[in-house]
């Protein structure tokens, strides 16, 4: 959700959807890798 125009000293910026995607990928990929490694380890419980 983008913020509505407000009075502020900060210059207007526009954030592209691509930038948001890249930001989430930057943290999401390592997290998913870690979760997958843990999930594989957890499967040992059911062997």
């Amino acid at each position, binding site marked *: *959700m*983008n*913020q*509505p*125009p*407000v*009075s*502020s*000293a*900060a*210059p*207007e*910026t*526009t*954030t592209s959807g691509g*930038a*948001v995607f890249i*930001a*989430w990928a*930057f*943290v*999401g990929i*390592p*997290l998913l*890798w*870690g*979760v997958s*490694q*843990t*999930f594989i*380890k*957890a*499967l*040992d*419980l*059911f*062997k």
Partner: protein
Amino acid sequence: MAEASILDRSRTVAGPGYNRWLIPPAALAIHLAIGQAYAFSVFKKPLGALISGDPAAPAAADWTPTQLGIIFSIAIVLLGLSAAIFGKWLERVGPRKAMMASALCFSGGFFIAALGVHLHNLWIVYFGYGVVGGIGLGIGYISPVSTLIKWFPDRRGVATGMAIMGFGGGAMIASPLSVALMDYFKTNGTGTLGVAATFLTLGVIYLLFMQFGVWTIRVPAEDWVPENYVPNPQHSALITSSNVSADNALKTPQFWLLWVVLLTNVTAGIGVLETASPLIQESFSDAVMGAGRGVTAAAAAGFVGLLSLFNLLGRFFWSSASDKMGRKTTYAIYFGLGIVLYALIPTLGRNIQLALYVGVACVIISMYGGGFATIPAYLSDLFGKYQVGAIHGRLLTAWSTAGVLGPLIVNFLHESRKAEGFTGAAAYQTVFYAMAGLLVVGLLANFAVTAVNAKYNEKGSVEAEPGGH
């Protein structure tokens, strides 16, 4: 007047058009890094065999497991202390400078610890990873909290849940990464079983990774609100539109009630986490299940992994759910359901109900994680957004206390039962009943939480921080 540094709060105010969904990844970059602390145990065996070179046969001069356990304890105690001490500083200087300080301390801790490993000087490791790294943990843990709440006044639980979920996820990344790095450096003959080189590498990786958070984080403009946002659409007496300072919060009974709430929830959860591997192996051993059917060490490691996953998921699920249910109700579920489940565990162990036992433990741990993730939103509801990061920092001393108290209670009760001749699941029976008793205390404390007396509220506008915009 000197020009503000690029790290100062005033230089991080977002302009119109800035997408608030960039803030959670910035927070996650910090929490995913510092969450490494929970994976420190992967270094214990190699660190305990630096002289002998064989983790299976440590030399007399090698560091003992007890000596090595102190490294993590120092780090967790420093986490709580630094969060409490630096909280107000963080509110003044803003999240970017705090995140940078966290990155420098956390990675610096690795560099100093690498030197300690290289010189085989445990005091340097204590100082590096424990003290310096611990300060990085504390500042990093609270650095994005108040910023997230300001960006997501309509979804406080979701926002803080995402960040604090990262702390749980950080260990999942660090554990296999550290093992892979140690294997690589050991094979390439860097000495110290690859530990010093791994510490150096992790220090560099985390310093760079955390920079993403440092340079992406923004604070919203003073008068910014989300589109279509109506404050307190479901009006509740427990959601204030006023603000209480960190110093005044300490004078309120609500702060100390929540301190007890966090302490009891975390202490009880640690009771399960600390004992997870031996607990399931002893409760469902070959002697109980039949020859060849008992839970093996590998399966127990899988159980620990499963608990980690539920710890992570619980942080997001319960915290998000609290936006709908309300914080007080959510904690009432943690405690009410928790009391029943903790009390049930010994019975499931005695009746050899392995699947149910695992399921119950997973739910318990999801609520343990949820307790961590929901508390910032609970604080924000009661004390407002003004200095919620600093208040949260002071509340984290409950975590440090639980980190010491939990293992002490568990080990004392377990050893006492064993001394009385109990084995298997029966040896843990009093542990779980004691934890259920602790949750009763937490339930009562949560029940006693009411709205903060208006006399503690700040007068007038409090949004402009000294040195701020």
